[in-house]
């Protein structure tokens, strides 16, 4: 088969591939091999479509720092929400046990507001019991963490260390924030 004839045969095969998605053998092994490549090229992406879609997703314009709107979009793009979602159970547990630690402060404040105990009595109660509440809450949080790691990955020093490294900040900061808030309330009321 001459070169020109091969080119014609290939073109006919390509026509068939484009219209039907399949190619019929021409009897020439070389042309058939090229036609098989054409099957893979069928539907080659249209570059205009690719450019249009990109422009739609990421419109050209001034830098992100130029306008407050784009700055807000950038801030929204920060991975805060994924971080919160990933750490939610640990933050909830930390907050819950922080609340337990602050229970003596909160219950004292409530008793004082309701007129059930004087400020001096509440202050004495908080001073006397706060270390126990803190100890119980920390122990409870440690047990919860150990149980969770045990159930999910098996409790070893390594799994515990990895979990603490990944979620310790969320758990600790939630514990600290709730506990600090309860103490701040008591302090503001002059109970501590």
């Amino acid at each position, binding site marked *: 088969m001459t*070169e*020109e004839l*091969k*080119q*014609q045969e*290939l*073109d006919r095969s*390509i*026509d068939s591939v*484009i219209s039907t*998605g399949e190619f019929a053998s021409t009897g020439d092994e070389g042309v058939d*091999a*090229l036609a098989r*490549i*054409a099957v*893979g*090229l*069928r*539907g*080659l*992406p*249209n*570059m205009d*479509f*690719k450019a249009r*879609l*990109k422009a*739609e*997703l*990421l419109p050209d314009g001034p830098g*992100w720092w130029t306008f407050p709107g784009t700055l807000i*979009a*950038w801030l*929204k*793009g*920060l*991975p805060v*929400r*994924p971080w919160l*979602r*990933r750490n939610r159970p640990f933050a909830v547990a930390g907050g819950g046990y922080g609340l337990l630690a602050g229970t003596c402060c909160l219950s004292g404040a409530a008793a004082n507001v309701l007129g059930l105990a004087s400020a001096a009595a509440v202050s004495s109660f908080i001073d006397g019991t706060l270390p126990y509440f803190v100890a119980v809450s920390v122990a409870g949080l440690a047990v919860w963490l150990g149980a969770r790691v045990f159930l999910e990955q098996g409790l070893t020093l390594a799994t515990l260390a990895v979990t603490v490294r990944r979620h310790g900040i969320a758990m600790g900061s939630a514990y600290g924030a709730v506990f600090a808030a309860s103490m701040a309330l008591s302090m503001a009321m002059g109970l501590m």
Partner: protein
Amino acid sequence: MLDTGQLEAERRLIEASQRQPRRFAQLYERYFDRVYAFALTRTGDRTSAEDVTAETFRQAFENLPRFEWRGVPFSAWLFRIAANAATDHFKRATREEVLAETPVAQDESWEARLIEVETRAQLFQLVQRLPKDQREVIVMRFGQEQNIREIAQATGRSEGAVKALQHRAMTSLRRWVGDSND
């Protein structure tokens, strides 16, 4: 398969895109061919593949801030979005009775489909390596589905010259595919 270094680079790019949405352009360029090839393999026609590809990237762009890196290639996440988008596309098309048949071969294995996707995506990328005149012919022939006469008129060449460029381009692609499979 991506090696550890490539996975790490991918993770950094994803995190950069999460911080600065405009960096998504790099992810788009990197994955466009594969997502499109996946969509084309699932749907079987260009218009549907474009719809599914567009929907996939819209969803990926929208949900990227919530994407959590788990050490799995980003393409797996994109393919999952694309598979759902293709399913939705078929449901809509069936409701509207636009498509007479579902072109997806249901008995084909997932692995076979992935190989087809990768082969197509590789070919799409290899086209960009062709010399400009050959690439132009291939893009017009397969990307815009023009015939030889139309291409000849558009490029100011003879039909014979266009056929010769087409043949040369296909020969190069065949050789490169062979080389990469060796």
